[in-house]
């Protein structure tokens, strides 16, 4: 490891340990407050996130159990003092030496600073030998010991606060139960929508057409025959079939986009991006097999996002990036527009969010005023 990096690590560890000491002291002082479960949980979450950061471990979602958060209070005090105090002494004595070496003479005789715990600095020879030596020795100590000690503290923290395998499993089951209910709701809503569209639209039109044709057939054999009347009915029936076809096409498109069936996800996204009003860079990695439901959601999400790019963003370019890790498909849609995308304004993004959540996926919309807008989707496809 490069020494520069080691030094950075030592500095970070020093900050961490001093912070731990401070937090231990704060814990003692604010104990009555921290016994409130809600605050205890937040206090524990902070420490857990901090420890995870130091260890470079993946960030753990906030919201641990209350009992563990309360347990953390005494552990935090003990670990913070035991591990943080030596760090404070070490760092403090480096500071003392840094001041004593050039400025020893500025102190009154009886207050002369002391190096190596109890050696008073009385003249330049002592200052120039003992001062740098103390800095060097303690610096070396810090360089070598701070990182492992800080890591030990962080591990203790995670050990106390991390969920056990059982807790993680229970949480996962709760999330899955919720999302499965969402899936069923979304699925049911989707079926009802299709049923309503077909029932109120296409089916009603076909009935109307059939009636007109039946009447036209009867009227055709009337004597005398009213040609104009028959022609009018046929005309109406004809118009009705055209409207029914247009409606049916729209229903089909919202169920499963035909281009997706024809060309797969890559082909369908190519078509969507070339249709977009601004130039779009499409970057699709190796995707392997993606479930049809996921493909459809990705297609609708990209289509909706690019429609918004064209309509609202004033962007001059956009990009769509798809990549696959073991069991997740991630989609990132960015544009260089003015940002400020507001989910409350249109129903489009809300609909997409519903579809994404229904598949146990996540969607994140980051669109600060002034841009750029970044929409990130993560969908499970294992």
């Amino acid at each position, binding site marked *: 490891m490069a020494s520069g990096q080691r030094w950075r690590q030592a500095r970070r560890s020093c900050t961490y340990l001093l912070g731990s000491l401070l937090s231990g002291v704060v814990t003692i002082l604010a104990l009555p407050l921290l016994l409130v479960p809600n605050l205890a949980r937040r206090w524990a979450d902070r420490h857990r996130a901090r420890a995870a950061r130091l260890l470079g471990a993946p960030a753990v979602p906030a919201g641990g159990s209350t009992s563990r958060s309360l347990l953390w209070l005494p552990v935090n005090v003990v670990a913070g003092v035991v591990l943080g105090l030596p760090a404070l002494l070490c760092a403090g004595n480096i500071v003392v030496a840094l001041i004593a070496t050039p400025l020893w003479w500025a102190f009154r005789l009886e207050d002369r600073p002391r190096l190596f715990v109890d050696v008073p600095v009385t003249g330049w020879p002592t200052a120039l030998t003992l001062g740098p030596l103390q800095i060097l020795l303690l610096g070396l100590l810090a360089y070598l010991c701070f990182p492992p000690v800080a890591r030990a503290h962080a591990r203790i923290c995670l050990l106390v606060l991390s969920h056990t395998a059982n807790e993680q499993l229970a949480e996962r089951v709760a999330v899955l139960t919720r999302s499965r209910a969402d899936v069923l709701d979304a699925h049911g809503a989707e079926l009802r929508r299709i049923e309503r569209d077909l029932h109120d639209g296409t089916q009603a039109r076909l009935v109307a057409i059939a009636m007109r044709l039946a009447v036209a057939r009867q009227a055709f054999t009337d004597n005398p025959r009213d040609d104009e009347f028959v022609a009018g009915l046929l005309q109406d029936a004809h118009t009705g079939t055209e409207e029914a076809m247009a409606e049916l096409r729209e229903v*089909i498109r919202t169920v499963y986009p035909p281009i997706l069936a024809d060309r797969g996800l890559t082909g369908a996204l190519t078509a969507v991006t070339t249709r977009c009003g601004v130039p779009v860079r499409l970057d699709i990695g190796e995707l392997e097999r993606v479930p049809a439901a996921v493909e459809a959601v990705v297609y609708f999400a990209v289509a909706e996002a690019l429609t918004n790019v064209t309509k609202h963003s004033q962007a001059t370019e956009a990009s769509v990036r798809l990549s696959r890790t073991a069991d997740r498909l991630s989609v990132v849609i960015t544009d260089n527009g003015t940002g400020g995308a507001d989910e409350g304004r249109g129903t489009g993004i809300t609909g997409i969010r519903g579809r994404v959540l229904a598949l146990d996926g996540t969607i994140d919309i980051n669109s600060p005023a002034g841009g750029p807008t970044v929409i990130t989707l993560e969908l499970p496809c294992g």
Partner: protein
Amino acid sequence: MRVVIAEDNVLLSTGLELLLGRAGFQIAAVAVDAPAFLAAVREHRPDVTIVDVRLPPSFRDEGIRAALQARKEHPGLPVLVLSQYVEQQYAAELLSSSAGGVGYLLKDRVSRVDEFVDAVRRVAAGGTAMDPEVIAGLVQRAGDPIAALTPREREVLALMAQGHDNNAIAGQLVITDNAVHKHIGNIFAKLGLAVTDSGHRRVLAVLAHLNAAGT
């Protein structure tokens, strides 16, 4: 005029046969999949072909691929592709596939018998028949350059891009040939296109322009 049809749905193919037969076309063959279609084209050398986008075995875009393949084997072969939905991507692929008449229409349009038969004749004669929905998409996408056109000029542009000649445009908009001529002059001037000739090449120029403007 001899036609080869590629359509696997019997209801639709008999409908097409009935309709085209009454309009004076001779149905040389009805193929139910891509290989049969290519074989029929080789055997009958038809004046025009009508192809459904979705064909067996996988009912994806076999029809488009068969049409492109047939045009590769027989340059200039007029192809009219029918589909339940239109996709600009397919239109672009068809238009860029060698010379010769080309059409891409929603199946819905078949029910307007006169217009459909006119489209088939136009394609057979080396012209273009693009579905209004394709053109509407292109025009919408083109944005800025189109904004300079008056509403009437936009109507003329859309009809021209669909493949209609001046006569037909005048008929549909109920204006004189002269007026159409003037509108077209204005459109080409505003879009910065050279008024070269009429017919297929003019349509291609307009479509290429719309395509380029949109990307």
